[in-house]
Protein backbone atom coordinates (compact mmCIF):
# COMPACT_ATOMS: atom_id res chain seq x y z
CA UNK A 1 0.00 0.00 0.00
CA UNK A 2 1.14 3.49 -0.81
CA UNK A 3 0.31 4.79 2.67
CA UNK A 4 2.54 2.16 4.25
CA UNK A 5 5.40 3.06 1.95
CA UNK A 6 4.99 6.74 2.86
CA UNK A 7 4.89 5.90 6.55
CA UNK A 8 8.00 3.75 6.26
CA UNK A 9 9.97 6.40 4.37
CA UNK A 10 8.86 9.28 6.60
CA UNK A 11 9.48 7.33 9.77
CA UNK A 12 13.00 6.41 8.67
CA UNK A 13 13.73 10.07 7.92
CA UNK A 14 12.28 11.12 11.29
CA UNK A 15 14.32 8.53 13.20
CA UNK A 16 17.49 9.63 11.41
CA UNK A 17 16.60 13.27 12.18
CA UNK A 18 16.10 12.45 15.86
CA UNK A 19 19.59 11.00 15.85
CA UNK A 20 20.89 14.31 14.49
CA UNK A 21 21.01 13.67 10.73
CA UNK A 22 20.44 17.18 9.33
CA UNK A 23 20.24 16.04 5.69
CA UNK A 24 17.50 13.55 6.46
CA UNK A 25 15.73 16.19 8.51
CA UNK A 26 15.81 18.67 5.66
CA UNK A 27 14.41 16.06 3.27
CA UNK A 28 11.67 15.22 5.75
CA UNK A 29 10.63 18.85 6.21
CA UNK A 30 10.68 19.54 2.48
CA UNK A 31 8.56 16.47 1.76
CA UNK A 32 6.11 17.25 4.52
CA UNK A 33 5.66 20.75 3.14
CA UNK A 34 4.42 19.31 -0.13
CA UNK A 35 1.77 17.26 1.66
CA UNK A 36 0.80 19.79 4.29
CA UNK A 37 0.18 22.71 1.93
CA UNK A 38 -2.73 21.16 -0.01
CA UNK A 39 -4.03 19.50 3.17
CA UNK A 40 -4.40 22.85 4.90
CA UNK A 41 -5.61 24.60 1.75
CA UNK A 42 -8.45 22.08 1.40
CA UNK A 43 -9.50 22.81 4.95
CA UNK A 44 -9.60 26.58 4.57
CA UNK A 45 -12.25 28.46 2.68
CA UNK A 46 -10.93 30.07 -0.54
CA UNK A 47 -10.83 33.50 1.09
CA UNK A 48 -8.45 32.15 3.74
CA UNK A 49 -6.31 30.12 1.35
CA UNK A 50 -3.36 32.40 2.05
CA UNK A 51 -3.27 31.07 5.62
CA UNK A 52 -2.17 27.64 4.40
CA UNK A 53 1.45 28.73 4.15
CA UNK A 54 1.41 30.09 7.72
CA UNK A 55 -0.05 26.82 8.92
CA UNK A 56 2.61 24.81 7.11
CA UNK A 57 5.28 26.87 8.85
CA UNK A 58 3.61 26.63 12.23
CA UNK A 59 3.41 22.87 11.84
CA UNK A 60 7.07 22.54 10.84
CA UNK A 61 8.03 24.71 13.80
CA UNK A 62 5.92 22.59 16.16
CA UNK A 63 7.46 19.43 14.72
CA UNK A 64 10.86 20.93 15.49
CA UNK A 65 10.24 22.13 19.05
CA UNK A 66 8.01 19.21 20.05
CA UNK A 67 9.91 16.41 18.34
CA UNK A 68 10.72 14.77 21.67
CA UNK A 69 7.02 13.94 22.05
CA UNK A 70 7.24 11.56 19.10
CA UNK A 71 7.35 8.02 20.49
CA UNK A 72 9.75 6.08 18.26
CA UNK A 73 7.71 2.92 18.55
CA UNK A 74 4.55 4.53 17.14
CA UNK A 75 3.63 5.50 13.55
CA UNK A 76 5.14 8.82 12.51
CA UNK A 77 2.36 9.84 10.14
CA UNK A 78 -0.29 9.68 12.83
CA UNK A 79 1.87 11.77 15.17
CA UNK A 80 2.39 14.36 12.43
CA UNK A 81 -1.31 14.27 11.65
CA UNK A 82 -2.09 15.01 15.30
CA UNK A 83 0.34 17.95 15.32
CA UNK A 84 -1.06 19.39 12.08
CA UNK A 85 -4.64 18.93 13.26
CA UNK A 86 -3.84 20.67 16.56
CA UNK A 87 -2.26 23.59 14.70
CA UNK A 88 -5.24 23.82 12.37
CA UNK A 89 -7.80 23.87 15.17
CA UNK A 90 -5.72 26.39 17.09
CA UNK A 91 -5.40 28.63 14.04
CA UNK A 92 -9.09 28.47 13.22
CA UNK A 93 -9.96 29.38 16.80
CA UNK A 94 -7.44 32.17 17.03
CA UNK A 95 -8.58 33.79 13.81
CA UNK A 96 -12.24 33.04 14.43
CA UNK A 97 -12.46 31.38 11.03
CA UNK A 98 -15.49 29.25 10.38
CA UNK A 99 -14.22 26.13 8.62
CA UNK A 100 -16.29 25.65 5.50
CA UNK A 101 -14.79 22.35 4.40
CA UNK A 102 -17.16 19.53 5.35
CA UNK A 103 -15.89 17.84 8.49
CA UNK A 104 -16.34 14.41 6.99
CA UNK A 105 -13.52 15.23 4.58
CA UNK A 106 -10.97 13.51 6.76
CA UNK A 107 -8.62 12.43 3.98
CA UNK A 108 -5.20 11.83 5.50
CA UNK A 109 -2.40 14.33 5.03
CA UNK A 110 -0.48 11.94 2.86
CA UNK A 111 -3.23 11.51 0.27
CA UNK A 112 -2.28 14.46 -1.94
CA UNK A 113 1.08 15.88 -2.81
CA UNK A 114 1.34 19.19 -4.61
CA UNK A 115 4.73 19.03 -6.30
CA UNK A 116 3.01 19.16 -9.73
CA UNK A 117 0.80 22.03 -8.62
CA UNK A 118 3.86 23.82 -7.31
CA UNK A 119 5.39 23.80 -10.79
CA UNK A 120 2.11 25.10 -12.24
CA UNK A 121 1.93 27.79 -9.61
CA UNK A 122 5.43 28.99 -10.43
CA UNK A 123 4.41 29.27 -14.10
CA UNK A 124 1.30 31.23 -13.18
CA UNK A 125 3.34 33.56 -10.99
CA UNK A 126 5.81 34.15 -13.83
CA UNK A 127 2.99 34.90 -16.28
CA UNK A 128 1.24 37.26 -13.91
CA UNK A 129 4.32 39.47 -13.58
CA UNK A 130 3.47 40.65 -17.10
CA UNK A 131 0.44 42.65 -15.93
CA UNK A 132 0.17 45.40 -13.28
CA UNK A 133 0.37 44.14 -9.72
CA UNK A 134 -3.21 45.00 -8.79
CA UNK A 135 -4.56 43.31 -11.89
CA UNK A 136 -2.43 40.24 -11.19
CA UNK A 137 -3.77 40.05 -7.67
CA UNK A 138 -7.37 40.40 -8.87
CA UNK A 139 -6.86 37.61 -11.39
CA UNK A 140 -5.24 35.38 -8.79
CA UNK A 141 -8.05 35.92 -6.32
CA UNK A 142 -10.99 35.55 -8.66
CA UNK A 143 -9.69 32.93 -11.08
CA UNK A 144 -7.43 30.78 -8.88
CA UNK A 145 -8.57 31.16 -5.29
CA UNK A 146 -12.29 31.33 -5.99
CA UNK A 147 -12.98 34.70 -4.39
CA UNK A 148 -16.01 36.52 -5.79
CA UNK A 149 -15.37 39.58 -7.97
CA UNK A 150 -17.25 41.78 -5.48
CA UNK A 151 -15.07 40.60 -2.60
CA UNK A 152 -11.82 41.00 -4.52
CA UNK A 153 -12.87 44.46 -5.67
CA UNK A 154 -13.70 45.48 -2.11
CA UNK A 155 -10.26 44.38 -0.96
CA UNK A 156 -8.67 46.74 -3.42
CA UNK A 157 -11.14 49.51 -2.71
CA UNK A 158 -12.54 49.56 -6.23
CA UNK A 159 -16.00 49.11 -7.68
CA UNK A 160 -17.07 45.74 -8.99
CA UNK A 161 -17.29 47.06 -12.55
CA UNK A 162 -13.79 48.51 -12.41
CA UNK A 163 -12.47 45.19 -11.11
CA UNK A 164 -14.23 43.28 -13.91
CA UNK A 165 -12.74 45.61 -16.50
CA UNK A 166 -9.30 45.32 -14.96
CA UNK A 167 -9.46 41.50 -14.90
CA UNK A 168 -10.76 41.38 -18.46
CA UNK A 169 -8.01 43.70 -19.75
CA UNK A 170 -5.35 41.81 -17.85
CA UNK A 171 -6.43 38.44 -19.23
CA UNK A 172 -6.70 39.88 -22.74
CA UNK A 173 -3.18 41.26 -22.62
CA UNK A 174 -1.86 37.95 -21.29
CA UNK A 175 -3.68 36.10 -24.09
CA UNK A 176 -2.08 38.26 -26.70
CA UNK A 177 1.35 37.73 -25.14
CA UNK A 178 1.23 34.00 -24.52
CA UNK A 179 -1.53 32.51 -26.65
CA UNK A 180 0.26 33.20 -29.94
CA UNK A 181 2.80 30.38 -29.89
CA UNK A 182 0.41 27.98 -28.16
CA UNK A 183 -2.41 28.01 -30.69
Amino acid sequence: MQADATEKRMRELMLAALDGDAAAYRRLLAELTRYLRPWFARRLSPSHASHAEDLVQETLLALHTKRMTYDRSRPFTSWLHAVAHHKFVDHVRRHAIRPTVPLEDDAPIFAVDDSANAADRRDVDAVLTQVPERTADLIRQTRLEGTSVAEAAARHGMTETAAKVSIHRGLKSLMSKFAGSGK
Partner: protein
Amino acid sequence: MTDELIDRLSAELKPTAARDLEKRILLAIALGLMGTLLMGPIVLDLLVGRPFGGAWGSPMFWGKLAYTIGLGLLGLVAVPALSRPDAHRVWPFWAAGAVILLALAAGIAGWMQADWAMPVLMGGTALVCPWLIILTAAPLLMVLLTAMRRFAPASPTLAGFGAGLLAGGFGAAAYAFYCGETSMMFMAVWYSLGIALTALLGALIGRYLLRW
Protein backbone atom coordinates in the same frame (compact mmCIF):
# COMPACT_ATOMS: atom_id res chain seq x y z
CA MET B 1 9.79 31.69 3.23
CA THR B 2 9.06 28.09 4.09
CA ASP B 3 12.34 27.11 2.47
CA GLU B 4 14.20 29.54 4.72
CA LEU B 5 12.46 28.05 7.73
CA ILE B 6 13.51 24.56 6.65
CA ASP B 7 17.11 25.76 6.29
CA ARG B 8 17.08 27.32 9.71
CA LEU B 9 15.46 24.34 11.45
CA SER B 10 17.76 21.77 9.87
CA ALA B 11 20.79 23.92 10.70
CA GLU B 12 19.94 23.99 14.37
CA LEU B 13 18.95 20.33 14.65
CA LYS B 14 20.36 18.61 17.71
CA PRO B 15 20.05 14.89 18.39
CA THR B 16 17.16 13.88 20.65
CA ALA B 17 17.82 11.11 23.15
CA ALA B 18 15.59 8.04 23.12
CA ARG B 19 12.82 8.29 25.74
CA ASP B 20 13.69 11.96 26.21
CA LEU B 21 10.13 12.80 27.28
CA GLU B 22 10.03 10.15 30.00
CA LYS B 23 13.46 11.21 31.27
CA ARG B 24 12.34 14.81 31.56
CA ILE B 25 9.24 13.78 33.50
CA LEU B 26 11.28 11.66 35.92
CA LEU B 27 13.83 14.43 36.41
CA ALA B 28 11.05 16.93 37.12
CA ILE B 29 9.48 14.53 39.62
CA ALA B 30 12.84 14.03 41.38
CA LEU B 31 13.37 17.80 41.62
CA GLY B 32 9.78 18.53 42.62
CA LEU B 33 9.72 15.79 45.25
CA MET B 34 12.69 17.43 46.95
CA GLY B 35 10.62 20.59 47.30
CA THR B 36 7.57 18.65 48.46
CA LEU B 37 9.59 16.68 51.02
CA LEU B 38 11.07 19.93 52.32
CA MET B 39 7.56 21.27 52.92
CA GLY B 40 7.27 18.67 55.72
CA PRO B 41 9.95 19.85 58.16
CA ILE B 42 9.70 23.54 57.19
CA VAL B 43 5.99 24.25 56.79
CA LEU B 44 4.16 21.36 58.45
CA ASP B 45 6.50 20.92 61.44
CA LEU B 46 7.80 24.43 62.13
CA LEU B 47 4.89 26.59 60.94
CA VAL B 48 1.84 24.37 61.50
CA GLY B 49 3.33 22.52 64.47
CA ARG B 50 2.90 18.91 63.31
CA PRO B 51 5.66 16.64 64.58
CA PHE B 52 7.10 14.05 62.23
CA GLY B 53 5.51 10.59 62.49
CA GLY B 54 2.20 11.49 64.16
CA ALA B 55 0.55 8.22 63.12
CA TRP B 56 3.70 6.17 63.49
CA GLY B 57 3.01 2.57 64.52
CA SER B 58 -0.63 2.60 63.42
CA PRO B 59 -1.43 0.20 60.54
CA MET B 60 -3.42 3.07 59.06
CA PHE B 61 -0.16 4.95 58.51
CA TRP B 62 0.84 2.30 55.99
CA GLY B 63 -2.67 2.31 54.59
CA LYS B 64 -2.45 6.03 53.92
CA LEU B 65 0.98 5.65 52.39
CA ALA B 66 -0.14 2.87 50.03
CA TYR B 67 -3.35 4.72 49.10
CA THR B 68 -1.69 8.03 48.28
CA ILE B 69 1.32 6.55 46.49
CA GLY B 70 -1.04 4.32 44.51
CA LEU B 71 -3.03 7.33 43.31
CA GLY B 72 0.22 9.16 42.50
CA LEU B 73 1.42 6.19 40.46
CA LEU B 74 -1.84 6.19 38.47
CA GLY B 75 -1.07 9.82 37.64
CA LEU B 76 2.44 8.81 36.64
CA VAL B 77 1.04 6.21 34.23
CA ALA B 78 -1.20 8.82 32.59
CA VAL B 79 1.20 11.77 32.27
CA PRO B 80 3.64 10.54 29.57
CA ALA B 81 0.84 9.47 27.21
CA LEU B 82 -1.17 12.64 27.81
CA SER B 83 1.94 14.73 27.06
CA ARG B 84 1.88 13.60 23.43
CA PRO B 85 -0.36 14.90 20.65
CA ASP B 86 -1.34 11.46 19.36
CA ALA B 87 -2.20 9.53 22.51
CA HIS B 88 -5.25 9.51 24.71
CA ARG B 89 -4.91 7.56 27.95
CA VAL B 90 -7.56 8.32 30.55
CA TRP B 91 -8.06 4.85 32.08
CA PRO B 92 -5.77 5.76 35.03
CA PHE B 93 -8.29 8.46 35.97
CA TRP B 94 -11.15 5.96 35.99
CA ALA B 95 -8.96 3.59 38.00
CA ALA B 96 -8.20 6.40 40.48
CA GLY B 97 -11.93 7.08 40.77
CA ALA B 98 -12.59 3.40 41.47
CA VAL B 99 -9.84 3.30 44.11
CA ILE B 100 -11.33 6.33 45.85
CA LEU B 101 -14.82 4.77 45.80
CA LEU B 102 -13.43 1.55 47.30
CA ALA B 103 -11.70 3.51 50.06
CA LEU B 104 -14.95 5.39 50.73
CA ALA B 105 -16.89 2.12 50.93
CA ALA B 106 -14.36 0.65 53.38
CA GLY B 107 -14.36 3.91 55.33
CA ILE B 108 -18.15 3.98 55.60
CA ALA B 109 -18.19 0.36 56.77
CA GLY B 110 -15.70 1.24 59.51
CA TRP B 111 -17.62 4.37 60.43
CA MET B 112 -20.85 2.37 60.73
CA GLN B 113 -19.16 -0.05 63.14
CA ALA B 114 -18.03 2.96 65.18
CA ASP B 115 -21.73 3.92 65.37
CA TRP B 116 -21.31 7.00 63.18
CA ALA B 117 -19.11 8.71 65.77
CA MET B 118 -18.21 12.17 64.47
CA PRO B 119 -14.48 12.02 65.41
CA VAL B 120 -14.04 9.02 63.09
CA LEU B 121 -15.00 11.21 60.17
CA MET B 122 -13.57 14.54 61.27
CA GLY B 123 -10.55 13.57 63.38
CA GLY B 124 -8.93 16.70 64.70
CA THR B 125 -7.65 18.14 61.43
CA ALA B 126 -10.32 17.52 58.79
CA LEU B 127 -10.76 21.14 57.78
CA VAL B 128 -7.08 21.85 57.22
CA CYS B 129 -6.06 18.46 55.80
CA PRO B 130 -7.06 19.02 52.13
CA TRP B 131 -5.47 22.47 52.05
CA LEU B 132 -2.23 21.26 53.61
CA ILE B 133 -2.10 18.43 51.07
CA ILE B 134 -2.41 20.96 48.22
CA LEU B 135 0.31 23.06 49.84
CA THR B 136 2.62 20.06 50.26
CA ALA B 137 2.00 18.96 46.68
CA ALA B 138 2.47 22.46 45.22
CA PRO B 139 6.26 22.36 44.64
CA LEU B 140 6.01 19.04 42.80
CA LEU B 141 3.05 20.22 40.74
CA MET B 142 4.77 23.44 39.73
CA VAL B 143 8.07 21.81 38.73
CA LEU B 144 6.23 19.10 36.78
CA LEU B 145 3.96 21.52 34.92
CA THR B 146 6.92 23.73 34.08
CA ALA B 147 8.77 20.77 32.58
CA MET B 148 5.64 19.78 30.67
CA ARG B 149 5.46 23.13 28.88
CA ARG B 150 7.91 21.72 26.36
CA PHE B 151 5.55 18.85 25.52
CA ALA B 152 2.65 18.79 23.09
CA PRO B 153 -0.41 17.43 24.90
CA ALA B 154 -3.46 16.64 22.79
CA SER B 155 -5.47 18.12 25.66
CA PRO B 156 -3.63 20.55 27.94
CA THR B 157 -6.42 20.26 30.50
CA LEU B 158 -6.20 16.47 30.75
CA ALA B 159 -2.39 16.56 30.87
CA GLY B 160 -2.60 19.09 33.70
CA PHE B 161 -5.13 16.88 35.49
CA GLY B 162 -2.71 13.93 35.24
CA ALA B 163 0.13 16.05 36.62
CA GLY B 164 -2.17 17.15 39.45
CA LEU B 165 -3.13 13.58 40.31
CA LEU B 166 0.54 12.61 40.36
CA ALA B 167 1.57 15.58 42.50
CA GLY B 168 -1.50 15.25 44.76
CA GLY B 169 -0.85 11.56 45.39
CA PHE B 170 2.84 11.95 46.17
CA GLY B 171 2.23 15.20 48.06
CA ALA B 172 -0.38 13.49 50.24
CA ALA B 173 2.11 10.68 50.90
CA ALA B 174 4.64 13.25 52.11
CA TYR B 175 1.90 14.86 54.21
CA ALA B 176 0.98 11.50 55.80
CA PHE B 177 4.30 11.55 57.72
CA TYR B 178 3.09 14.64 59.58
CA CYS B 179 -0.53 13.60 60.06
CA GLY B 180 -1.78 11.94 63.25
CA GLU B 181 -5.15 10.71 61.95
CA THR B 182 -5.70 6.96 62.01
CA SER B 183 -9.22 6.45 60.69
CA MET B 184 -10.01 4.93 57.31
CA MET B 185 -13.02 7.19 56.85
CA PHE B 186 -10.86 10.25 57.51
CA MET B 187 -8.43 9.20 54.81
CA ALA B 188 -11.12 8.24 52.30
CA VAL B 189 -12.82 11.63 52.60
CA TRP B 190 -10.17 14.23 53.37
CA TYR B 191 -7.08 12.79 51.71
CA SER B 192 -9.12 12.04 48.59
CA LEU B 193 -10.47 15.57 48.64
CA GLY B 194 -6.96 17.03 48.91
CA ILE B 195 -5.69 14.89 46.04
CA ALA B 196 -8.75 15.62 43.88
CA LEU B 197 -8.40 19.36 44.47
CA THR B 198 -4.72 19.18 43.52
CA ALA B 199 -5.70 17.34 40.32
CA LEU B 200 -8.29 20.01 39.52
CA LEU B 201 -5.75 22.74 40.21
CA GLY B 202 -3.39 20.98 37.80
CA ALA B 203 -6.13 20.82 35.16
CA LEU B 204 -6.89 24.51 35.60
CA ILE B 205 -3.26 25.61 35.35
CA GLY B 206 -2.49 23.10 32.60
CA ARG B 207 -5.33 24.39 30.49
CA TYR B 208 -3.47 27.68 30.08
CA LEU B 209 0.16 26.79 30.79
CA LEU B 210 0.39 23.71 28.58
CA ARG B 211 -1.10 25.27 25.43
CA TRP B 212 1.09 25.02 22.38
